[in-house]
């Protein structure tokens, strides 16, 4: 129903609500506040402390007595040839972990996505290694890789390999592969579960349409499945990268970074400097390099994610 108003007549002013502050504007801060406080107190503050510590000579036994040494701790690291090996081992270990865990996880997820009898049980079984405590896993695998009594060598001998007496964890060539086998065994189920969840978002209509159009399996995967799961896989790769850079328990328990530095990653180096040599300043400098690498990886991830979103017109 319309209301006629005579020309020239002045419409009575609508009753305006009294100017009140927007009651809802604080709500986001209330939600973000605790998280921001947590990050400031338990992440940012310790990080700043670590940075300051890395410019000092500080003993674990007298953590309150600092001597400012400038960049000496960083110079010591750069000058030491073993630190170059630490960086190389960290790089190889991280890349291998990410590539193999994602690859195996993808294969396992694709298999578990197929309908078959006992699929629910199979999905549950796959997650068991991820749920196992790393300490227990390390101790079990130390026995599995034992030269004389280990199952691994027993299987190799049974398969006809003559060199079934390998001393896996004590050999400079084999220790890192042994650590990788253990790590991948434990982490690939997580990758499988994440990718399996992402696969549930793939449109079955699109998949069927592609098949009707004559696309083979590889083309369906490349044109339909991969674009859908790619963001999840990228995020998974980021997580696996950061977790691999900072993984300590498995490596320390199995080899303590040995033999001859063959499995010494940044975190093992940090622990050794801080708690074996009791040099907190030097340990902090190793930690800051680790933080810088993790930040770089995160930056690269967000850079490529942003580029992909722009290319897809989502930004």
């Amino acid at each position, binding site marked *: 129903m319309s209301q006629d108003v005579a020309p020239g007549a002045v419409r009575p002013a609508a009753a305006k609500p009294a100017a009140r502050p927007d009651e809802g504007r604080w709500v986001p801060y209330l939600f973000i506040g605790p998280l921001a406080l947590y990050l400031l107190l338990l992440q940012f503050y310790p990080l700043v402390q670590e940075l300051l510590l890395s410019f000092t000579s500080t003993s674990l*036994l007298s*953590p309150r007595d600092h001597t400012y040494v400038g960049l000496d701790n960083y110079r010591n690291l750069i000058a030491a040839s073993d630190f170059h090996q630490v960086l190389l081992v960290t790089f190889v270990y991280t890349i291998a972990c990410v590539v193999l865990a994602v690859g195996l996880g993808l294969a396992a997820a694709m298999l578990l996505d197929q309908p078959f009898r006992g699929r629910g049980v199979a999905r549950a079984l796959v997650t068991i290694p991820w749920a196992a405590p790393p300490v227990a896993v390390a101790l079990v695998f130390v026995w599995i890789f034992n030269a004389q009594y280990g199952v691994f060598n027993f299987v190799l001998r049974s398969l006809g390999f003559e060199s079934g007496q390998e001393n896996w964890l004590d050999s400079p060539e084999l220790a890192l592969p042994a650590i990788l086998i253990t790590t991948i065994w434990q982490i690939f189920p997580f990758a499988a579960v994440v990718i399996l969840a992402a696969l549930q978002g793939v449109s079955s209509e699109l998949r069927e349409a592609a098949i009707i159009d004559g696309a083979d399996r590889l083309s369906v995967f490349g044109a339909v499945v991969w674009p859908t799961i790619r963001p999840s896989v990228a995020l998974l790769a980021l997580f696996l990268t950061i977790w691999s850079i900072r993984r300590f328990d498995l490596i320390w328990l199995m080899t303590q970074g040995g*033999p001859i530095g063959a499995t010494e990653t940044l975190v093992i180096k940090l622990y050794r400097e801080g708690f074996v040599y009791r040099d907190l300043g030097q340990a902090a400098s190793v930690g800051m390099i680790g933080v810088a690498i993790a930040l770089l990886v995160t930056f690269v991830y967000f850079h490529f994610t942003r580029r992909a979103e722009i290319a897809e017109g989502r930004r």
Partner: protein
Amino acid sequence: MVHHPTRRDLGRAAAAALLHPLGRPAIAQGARETLTFAAVTFTEAGRGERLRAWVERFNRSQDRIEVQAVGIPFATLANTVFTQMGGGGGPDLVRFDQIDYYAAVAANRILPLDDVIDEQDYRFAAPDRYLKVGGKRYGIAFESSNYVLLYNRTLLRGAAPTSFDAFLAAAREATGGGNYGFAYRATMAERPGFWQDLCNFVYGFGGRWSDGQGNLTLNAPGVVEGVVAYKRMFDSGTTPRGADAATYRRMFWEGKLAMEVDNGGVATIFHQQAPNLPLAAAPSPFPTRAQGLVLAPLTINANTRKRPAAAAFVKWTLQPEPQRELQAILGASNVATVVERSPEDLAAQPWLKVYDDQTPNSVPQLVEGYEVKTPEVQQIVLEQVLRVLQAGSDPKRAMDDAQRQAASRVRR
């Protein structure tokens, strides 16, 4: 006058009863001062329980002080206690390993005991001389232990070897049928034990890690000969490679391992766990009698607010009867003062005498003059020895590298 407990008294009693592990009547102990005593040995199977009972004897011997035993595993004791000390706390009494003792002294984390102990009053055992730093005493030996060759009389089939070549031959002869001739550590996963075993070989061949004058001697002839011997044993095919100490020690008391060079504490555990084992001991079969020494001092935390009570416990420990009891618990290890063994013990365990006779030849497993830097030198040396064992590096060249790296490291 009858004292009626106040509400505060009752509260204290309830709290003490809840906190006290044995749940003894708390009101009677209300005035007692409680000390904590941290040691690895309280966690050991067999010896741990007996040591706790020994501490309880002190608690029963007087009504003023209560010492509570705190067991911390070997791998974490030093870091746990040092972190607590760095924060201004920590246990009142600590049994350190020697490598940590010197670090604690250097950082002023433990108290000098010169005003607590009058040395004229005691007859200290030989290793006591290693507890003085800069002329001051910071601890008493809670336990010291020597290394000798332990062997299974049945598996060895003959007298104990007296030379290194005879040792290798005996190990080869005893290997086979699931048995091994000898076992030692050669992995970084057991770094401290690897170092102890290496020290025995190096000291046995006349080597030392320094000359005591501030110069490292990692590439001196005696050290290189010790490393060569370590490698010869590694290549002999007589050792269960990859087996950790816990495993091969179990193999020994199960009669599957013929020989090992180990300390008196381990021999005591063998004797307790397998009384029927044909256990025997002999001097280690190296050119010289020098071997490593395990030395674990009892110390007082500099942060303690109960210094007189802690000192009272240390003085009680040095009394003849507690020393005798402690010696009986520790078996083939020694205590702070000289305690004569009974003829019955020596007759029942003849290997005890071999351990006791080794005492004058035992040398701490430290880099003399660089005690605090020992972990860093240790890491460098062990990595080079692993190159010799695993990668076939030349022992002399490897130890030259160790000398160069360690000299640079200790200067930092």
